[in-house]
C-alpha cells in the first residue's frame, strides 16, 4: 500500500511538474507576440498581434486533431497522458511563432494561417516523429534535449523559405544596395517579450527532462535551469559588448537577440555542460547572432525580428556543440540530424509557400504595405490616438 501511495505521489509530482513547465511554454506565446509587436512599425502592430494569437490557437487545435498522433503514435508516459500532450502542444506553437516574426509587415494574414495548419499537422510532427518520437534520427543517436533543432531550427527553416519567396519589405533595401533602417515602434514591448521568453524558457528546457521524481532527475532539471539562465546572460553580454565595440552604441534590439541566442544555443543540451561551459556557449551564440543578422541583411534577406538568425543559425550552433559536453553525442550525427531536419522542413515549407503564392498569394500589395496591415487585415489601428505618419 505504501509503495503504491508513493507511486501515486510520484505520478502526481511528475504530472504537476510537466503542467507547470507547459504553462510556462504557453506563456512564451505572449513573449513572441510582444517581441514582434515591439519590432514592427506601428501600422502593422494590430495585425501581428492577431497573427500571434491566431497561430497559437490554430497550432493547438491542429496538433490536437492530427499532429500529436503523427508525432507520437503511441505515447505512454509515466504521468498523466494529458500532461504529456499539454507539454508537447505548446512546443509546436513555439515553432510556428518563430515564422511569424520573420515574415512580418508584408505577408497576407490568411495565407500565413493556412501554412500554420500544414506545419502543425504535418511538417513539424513528421520531423518530430523522426526525433523525439523515436524514429530514424533518434536511432542514429542524435541528441537534441529540448529542441534547438527540432523546434527552433524547424521554425527558422520554414521562415527562411517564406522570406525568400516573399522578398524584403519595400523600402528596406534601397536601389543603391544600401540598407535602410525601419525601426521597430515600441522598445519596451520588445524588451518585455524577451523577458517573457527568458522566463518561459525555464519551462521549455526545465520541462524537457520529462520526469522529476528522483534525485538524478531533480539535479538534471536544476542544472538545465541554471545553464539556461547562464547562457542567456552570456549571450546578452556578448551582444552588448560586441555592438558597443562595433558601433559605439549598446544596440538594444541586438542585445535582446543576444539573450535569445543564448537561450536557443543551450536548448539542445542544457544538462551536461558545466555552468561555465554554458556561459561560453551563450557568449559565442551572442556573437554569432549579431554577425548572422548583419550577414543576412547584406544578402537582402529581410527578417524584421532576426528570427532566422536567432532560431536557425544559433539553433544549428547549439545542436552542433552538444558533443563537447555530452559524450553520448557525435558531431557527425548531430550534423546529419541538423541537415535532415533543415532539409525536410525547408523543402516542405518551400513547396507549401510556393503553392500559396501561386494560388491565393502570400504578399499584400505595395499600396496595402504602405498603409499598413492593420488597416488592411484588421481594420483597426494599434495606437489610434498617438501614432504619426512615418
Amino acid at each position, binding site marked *: 500500500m505504501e509503495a503504491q501511495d508513493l507511486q501515486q505521489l510520484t505520478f502526481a509530482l511528475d504530472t504537476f511538474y510537466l503542467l507547470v513547465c507547459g504553462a510556462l511554454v504557453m506563456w512564451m506565446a505572449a513573449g513572441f507576440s510582444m517581441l514582434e509587436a515591439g519590432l514592427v512599425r506601428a501600422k502593422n502592430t494590430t495585425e501581428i498581434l492577431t497573427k500571434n494569437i491566431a497561430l497559437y490557437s490554430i497550432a493547438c487545435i491542429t496538433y490536437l486533431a492530427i499532429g500529436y498522433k503523427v508525432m507520437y503514435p503511441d505515447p505512454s508516459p509515466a504521468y498523466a497522458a494529458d500532461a504529456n500532450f499539454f507539454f508537447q502542444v505548446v512546443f509546436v506553437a513555439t515553432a510556428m511563432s518563430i515564422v511569424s516574426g520573420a515574415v512580418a509587415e508584408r505577408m497576407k494574414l490568411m495565407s500565413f494561417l493556412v501554412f500554420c495548419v500544414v506545419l502543425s499537422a504535418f511538417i513539424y510532427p513528421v520531423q518530430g516523429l523522426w526525433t523525439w518520437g523515436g524514429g530514424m534520427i533518434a536511432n542514429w543517436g542524435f541528441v537534441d534535449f529540448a529542441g534547438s533543432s527540432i523546434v527552433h531550427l524547424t521554425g527558422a527553416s520554414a521562415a527562411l523559405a517564406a522570406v525568400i519567396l516573399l522578398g524584403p519589405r519595400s523600402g528596406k533595401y534601397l536601389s543603391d544596395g544600401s540598407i535602410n533602417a525601419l525601426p521597430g515602434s515600441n522598445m519596451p514591448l520588445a524588451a518585455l517579450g524577451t523577458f517573457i521568453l527568458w522566463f518561459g524558457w525555464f519551462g521549455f528546457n526545465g520541462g524537457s527532462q520529462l520526469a522529476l521524481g528522483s534525485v538524478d532527475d531533480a539535479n538534471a532539471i536544476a542544472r538545465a535551469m541554471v545553464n539556461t539562465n547562464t547562457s542567456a546572460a552570456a549571450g546578452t553580454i556578448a551582444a552588448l559588448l560586441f555592438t558597443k565595440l562595433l558601433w559605439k552604441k549598446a544596440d538594444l534590439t541586438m542585445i535582446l537577440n543576444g539573450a535569445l541566442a543564448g537561450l536557443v544555443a543551450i536548448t539542445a543540451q542544457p544538462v551536461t555542460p558545466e555552468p561555465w561551459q554554458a556561459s561560453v556557449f551563450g557568449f559565442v551564440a551572442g556573437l554569432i547572432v549579431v554577425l548572422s543578422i548583419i550577414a543576412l541583411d547584406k544578402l537582402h534577406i529581410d527578417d524584421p525580428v532576426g528570427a532566422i538568425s536567432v532560431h536557425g543559425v544559433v539553433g544549428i550552433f547549439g545542436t552542433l556543440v552538444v558533443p563537447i559536453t555530452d559524450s553520448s553525442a557525435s558531431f557527425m550525427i548531430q550534423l546529419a540530424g541538423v541537415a535532415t531536419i533543415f532539409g525536410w522542413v525547408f523543402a516542405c515549407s518551400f513547396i507549401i509557400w510556393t503553392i500559396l503564392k501561386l494560388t491565393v498569394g502570400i504578399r499584400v500589395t505595395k499600396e496595402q504595405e*504602405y498603409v499598413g496591415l492593420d*488597416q488592411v487585415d484588421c*481594420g*483597426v*489601428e494599434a495606437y489610434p490616438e498617438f501614432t*504619426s*505618419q*512615418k
Partner: protein
Amino acid sequence: MKMLVALIKPFKLEDVKQALFEIGCSGLTVTEVRGVGRQKGHTELYRGAEYQVDFLPKMKIELALPDETLERALEVVSAAAHTGNIGDGKIFVLPLEHCVRIRTGETDKDAL
C-alpha cells in the same frame, strides 16, 4: 519675400526636400497635418462599429524664400510631389513682410 506653404502626401516629403535643396533652399519647416478634400478617407472597424476616417495624413512644408526663387520653387515642388492621383495636395503662396534670424539678428533676405 514669400511664404510658400505646400500640403503634400507624407511619403513625398523626402523627394520634395531634396528638390528644394537642389535649387538652393537652405531651410524649411515641416508639420504633420491632416487634410480633407476630394481624396476619400477610409473606413475603419472597431468591434463591429464602422467609422469613417475623413482626415488623411498630409505633410505641410513651410518655406520662406525671396521673390526671385518663387517660380523655380513652385515648379520643383509641383514636380516632386506629383503622383497624378487625387490628394496630391496644394501649394499656397502668402506675402512675407519681414524675417529675422535669431542667432545673428540678420534680417530679411540675409536671414533666409
